[in-house]
């Protein structure tokens, strides 16, 4: 523990927080632009060239807006709830490595903030703190819509957290470690010299479950139950305005970035890519590009699919994703044991095949259930 180390931590933490907060601002613009293009519109283009000053205008507007606190709200919790929501969203990505370590001016620089040996566990635990903020926001507003939004969000997040955790488990099994750096290095290298060893190829169904469950985790469409406008006005942030609303909004979008960064790290090879060993600065570029692509996926899904009904959301989480992800954990474990037992890594190939088979069975069963007449009427 010397002075330089503390300075390095400070600088890295500061830079990463700035990246997240700036990224949040520009993610709103990115989303609005992408949605606009999908809907044959132009999107914000008045504030600065191509609307690049739009987030700043939004921020100024939100800062100067009047802060309203409902008369019978629980004032302390009402003020605290946005903070409780934002903080986990910002600190969750501390374990994500965004580049390989390298020497610069004789100083060994590592491109991550914390290297925890239970990194994935840290992500899961911090992610579940965020739900407190939303529930407390809903409860303290003393408003039935906000309350219902908060309750829905807690039920939804707890349900999908299980599927999310189990989809992490298959990645942990494949990497043999919970450290994010080990997970990334397990995905370096190539099969047949051109297929990258990303876990998305070894466990495609697990990746799909991860992507679906993250949509529910960050309350994005088509799982945006807590803020279903048509039913709950604005859900848990109905009573929030001004900067408190901005904090809740920021938490949502920062969580989107965080979850994309985690997904890119765990399933899409993290900072791995061509020539990253020779040029370490390519690492951050690769992970940035992967995050952008995953974020586009979230926006794209929002633009495409309608919100699913609440009971079906819960049924999908508990009756489909949970058994499926448990089966995937089993398949992954069996594949790894077989590959180790016969000392033949090509036996790992049965993992994606068996997973796709099980996923096919699951799809067929969902399809049959949805086509049953009495289910459609229910």
């Amino acid at each position, binding site marked *: 523990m010397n002075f330089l180390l503390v300075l390095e931590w400070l600088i890295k933490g500061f830079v990463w927080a700035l990246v997240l907060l700036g990224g949040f601002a520009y993610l709103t613009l990115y989303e609005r632009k*992408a949605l*606009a*293009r*999908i*809907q*044959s*519109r*132009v999107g914000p283009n008045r504030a600065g060239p191509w609307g690049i000053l739009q987030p700043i205008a939004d921020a100024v507007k939100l800062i100067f807006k009047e802060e309203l606190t409902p008369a019978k709200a629980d004032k302390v919790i009402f003020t605290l709830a946005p903070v409780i929501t934002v903080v986990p969203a910002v600190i969750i990505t501390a374990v994500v490595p965004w580049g390989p370590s390298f020497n610069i001016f004789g100083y060994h620089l590592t491109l991550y903030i914390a290297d925890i040996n239970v990194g994935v566990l840290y992500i899961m635990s911090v992610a579940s703190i965020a739900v407190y903020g939303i529930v407390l926001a809903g409860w303290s507003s003393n408003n039935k819509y906000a309350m219902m939004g908060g309750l829905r969000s807690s039920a939804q997040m707890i349900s999908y957290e299980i599927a999310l955790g189990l989809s992490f488990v298959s990645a942990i099994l494949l990497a043999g470690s919970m450290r994010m750096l080990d997970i990334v290095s397990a995905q370096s290298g190539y099969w047949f010299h051109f297929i990258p060893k990303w876990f998305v190829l070894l466990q495609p169904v697990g990746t799909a479950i991860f992507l679906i469950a993250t949509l529910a985790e960050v309350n994005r469409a088509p799982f945006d139950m807590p803020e279903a406008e048509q039913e709950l006005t604005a859900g848990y942030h109905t009573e929030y305005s001004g900067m408190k609303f901005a904090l809740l909004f920021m938490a949502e979008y920062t969580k989107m970035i965080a979850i994309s960064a985690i997904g890119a790290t765990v399933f899409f090879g993290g900072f791995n890519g061509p020539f990253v060993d020779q040029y370490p600065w390519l690492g951050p570029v690769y992970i940035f590009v992967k995050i952008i692509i995953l974020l586009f996926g979230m926006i*794209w*899904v929002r*633009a*495409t*699919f309608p919100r699913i009904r609440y009971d079906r959301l819960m049924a999908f989480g508990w009756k489909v994703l949970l058994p499926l992800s448990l089966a995937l954990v089993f398949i992954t474990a069996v594949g790894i044991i077989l590959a180790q037992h016969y000392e033949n890594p090509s036996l790992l190939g049965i993992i994606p095949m068996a997973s796709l088979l099980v996923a*096919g*069975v699951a*799809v*067929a069963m*969902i*399809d049959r259930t949805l086509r049953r007449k009495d289910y459609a009427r229910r």
Partner: protein
Amino acid sequence: MRVVEPVVELARGLWTTFRMMVDKPVTIQYPEQKKPVKPRFRGRHVLKRYDNGLEKCIGCALCAAACPADAIFVESSENTDEVRYSPGDRYASTYEINMLRCIFCGFCEDACPTEAIVLGDQYELSFTDRRQSIYPKEMLIDPVPEGISPTPQKTRPGEFTRSVPEMKDPVD
């Protein structure tokens, strides 16, 4: 057993939205670019003139009577051959439309016996003071054609006795 089709259906939905990204946006950059209005568009009212510069409006107040929102106020005065605003005996000395009341139904246009009031193409009608919502005759009336003396004109006696002109079938 349908395994592939449900996934293909989801993917088709995604492809549909993705394909829309290459479409040209339908947005019109409004203050800079304006879309021409349709021929029967009902915008701000215009009081028309004849080719010789006389006003078509004869101050009959049929438009005010037809107006369902009671937005029009007309006050008429006598024409003389020395001080002539419109053909016939009378002209509208005051003609005001309250744009806060007007619902742009076009009934005034239909009621007018001389086709003097027409709902035009102008649709940028914002104002910042409610007093500005009353559009007086000076704002509504067409400018005098070039080379023609403005109203009131001095005319020869007996030339403009007929207040309602002979009408053709209406066109847009």
